[in-house]
């Protein structure tokens, strides 16, 4: 099960080397995103697109809010 995290935990994990992934569509990502986040829209998320991520490092996913 993925672990839910809050804002402070996100900051801590990123400071420790976690990767941030916004899973919203590209247009929304380009409007604004968390510093350092990459964009892999949910609709395109598969083993191929996930190759942009390093498996050894933690991954934090997010979208706009509780949707």
């Amino acid at each position: 099960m993925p672990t839910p995290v809050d804002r402070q935990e996100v900051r801590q994990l990123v400071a420790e080397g976690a990767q941030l992934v916004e899973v919203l569509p590209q247009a929304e990502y380009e409007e604004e995103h968390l510093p350092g986040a990459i964009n892999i829209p949910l609709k395109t998320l598969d083993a191929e697109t996930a190759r942009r991520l390093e498996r050894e490092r933690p991954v934090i996913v997010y979208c706009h809010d509780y949707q």
Partner: protein
Amino acid sequence: MSPRAASRLESIGFPRVYDYVAGKADWGSFGMPLEGRRGSETRVGAHLRRDVPACRLDEPLHEVRTRVRAAGPDTCFVVNDENVVLGRLGRAALAGADQLTVEQAMSSGPSTVRPSLELDRAVERMRRQNLTTLPVTTSDGRLLGLLERDTAERALRELNPNSASTLSESSQP
């Protein structure tokens, strides 16, 4: 959406996946920086006056008045130990009788906005409601600062020079 993405990443084989379920709406509402075309400078949080006087419920009004006047602004926010806004002392309230406490003089529950609010929307609101300032808090009510209308209008003109004439026209009574 993010829970599905997190589960998918786990199924692909990522061993440490976290889900920031509150997302960028939460991030922005706490005044945290955002990158991208829109960027943080178009948001209220980038244009706050942060040195806003604050006081506690049980303070004598005359002591707060002296402190506030020395600081400059004609308003003071009443906060609790967690810096959550409980009320506001405007110019008239600050001029109240010396024997009053802050709690007796304040207006409760002032309307506030989040730092992630678009600056143009904040300016529209101040014009519509004839406000010179807007208090800005996090989504859990903690005081971040004050958006002053003059500052906000100037910033908006600098961000979008082409709309300057429209803005000044719409600000006329």
